[in-house]
């Protein structure tokens, strides 16, 4: 009996020791930044509009002469399926690098200056910050009266003010005030998860002045939204990437805003500036450690 209690006490002591070891070790690991450590590359999943725009703009995607394209993103990259997960991963890992929409940036992570330009809406607008993609809506030729009126609203001064308020960059600096006919009816808008938040705010603002309008927004990804619009299931497609030639044959695109992509690192990372070539080399796996960046 005595031996039994002794062994239980020993087991409990072991458990306590393990927890103590964990706790002590955890706090010691924080703080100092070791530039010799490997870079944790965080990318988005295949098919994501953000990933599509990033790999195209940064030259991570390679197009060969025969028209085939290869996404050269390093196979070692961690894959996160959402902007918030990318930010969470980068915020929790001193050595991580990722990319997100500029409109989603907050102080949990640090945006790097790209080729000497800070990631701000102003720099995107002036063209100094080159990593930016259009937010596009596209319609097939025969659009309803309501769809046309809603697009008119988006491109008006009121609509572009909503776009600017979200942290995106309006495309029409001096848009005319809205003067639509406000028809009633129902339209369906489908597509990109990145574009959907701004479209939702635009539709809320539009319905305040046109109570007869019903706008359904289906968030299912760029490609699915475009397909639905070509098939006539939805009236307007939301796209976070330029349309390809097949899609352009069936749809008319309108750029409603420009969204910068921020290259983000952990707040503990001392790096402040990076070049496009370095970003590309990191994402195709040719630069793997932080001390390889000057």
């Amino acid at each position, binding site marked *: 009996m005595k031996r039994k209690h002794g062994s239980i006490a020993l087991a409990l002591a072991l458990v306590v020791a393990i927890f103590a070891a964990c706790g002590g*070790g955890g706090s010691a690991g924080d703080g100092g930044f070791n530039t010799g450590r490997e870079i944790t590359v965080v990318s988005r999943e*295949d098919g994501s509009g953000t990933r599509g725009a990033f790999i195209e703009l940064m030259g991570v995607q390679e197009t060969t002469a025969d028209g085939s394209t290869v996404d050269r993103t390093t196979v070692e990259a961690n*894959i996160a399926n959402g902007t918030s997960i990318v930010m969470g991963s980068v915020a929790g890992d001193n050595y991580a690098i990722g990319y997100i929409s500029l409109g989603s940036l907050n102080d949990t992570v640090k945006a790097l200056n790209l080729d000497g330009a800070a990631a701000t809406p102003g720099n995107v607008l002036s063209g100094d910050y080159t990593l930016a993609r259009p937010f596009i809506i596209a319609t097939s030729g025969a659009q309803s009266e309501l769809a046309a009126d809603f697009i008119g609203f988006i491109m008006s001064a009121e609509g572009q003010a909503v776009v600017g308020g979200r942290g995106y960059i309006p495309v029409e600096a001096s848009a005319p005030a809205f003067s639509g006919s406000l028809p009633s009816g129902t339209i369906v808008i489908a597509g990109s*998860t990145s574009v959907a938040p701004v479209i939702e705010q635009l539709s809320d603002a539009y319905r305040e002045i046109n109570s007869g309008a019903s706008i359904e927004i289906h968030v299912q990804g760029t490609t699915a939204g475009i397909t639905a619009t070509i098939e006539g299931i939805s009236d307007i497609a939301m796209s976070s990437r330029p349309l390809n030639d097949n899609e352009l044959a069936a749809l008319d695109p309108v750029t409603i805003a420009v969204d910068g992509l921020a290259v983000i690192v952990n707040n503990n990372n001392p790096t402040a500036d990076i070049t496009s070539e370095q970003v590309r080399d990191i994402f195709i796996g040719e630069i793997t450690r932080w001390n390889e960046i000057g």
Partner: protein
Amino acid sequence: MATKQLEGFMKYVFMMAALASILAVALICVFLFAGGIPAMIEIGLFDFLLGRQWTPVDTPPSFGILPMVMGSLYVTLGAIVVGVPIGVLTAVFMSHFCPPFLYKVLKPATQLLAGIPSVVYGFFGLVVLVPFVRDHMGLIFGGNGSSIFTASILLGIMILPTIIGVSEAAIRAVPSSYYEGAVALGASHERSVFFAVVPAAKSGILTSVILGIGRAIGETMAVIMVAGNQARMPTGLFRGGRTLTANIVMEMGYAADLHRAALIATGVILFVFILLINLAFTILRRRGRS
């Protein structure tokens, strides 16, 4: 008379209820196979099952799911290595060594473990396990913490309640004459438990392991948050990998056309895995009875 009619009527109500689950399984089968088989044929069965490249948005795309099959197998194997020894020893302890006051705490604690939603496990893994593995193992073994190793530990913890619960029930079901006989022959308490009682509960313990495998292979949310999700052949314990379930969940939102069909086909493979596990479970249970 009215009672008899009611009884007859209720019989059909119960039958409908029983048929509902069968109908659900049948519908899932139809959906999966109708969506997945054409994609497998279009990609080519061998290219699909044995291809090592998963690049769905390249032109031309490749849809090889071998990396994900291996990822699922490794992560599940790791979960078994972590979870089975701890789980079975816990079951032995709880049934034969545990003082009653401790049992009153241990039993509810293991049951509570089963009730925690998997996304909470995943979050625990993301904020506790991943940084721990990165800071303590990363310096020696490399990697960034999101790895097969981390996923194995997390899944090992997640399958504990299944293994402990089923194993403990199996050990307790062994007639007390086994234990008494061993003690009467002069064996110590420990020797009687480990060499007479536990071997007698072998098939029940194996059943618990198979149920644990089933839970581990189907887990999605927790694995996505800690495994890194790289779609390439696993290259090491401390490197990331992607499981079949993660592959489906991560890309379904954006997939179109053949990409989408390939993800459904991934579901078919997962379904076949689960069928095999259930088959093994049934065979074991039959053998245990006879």
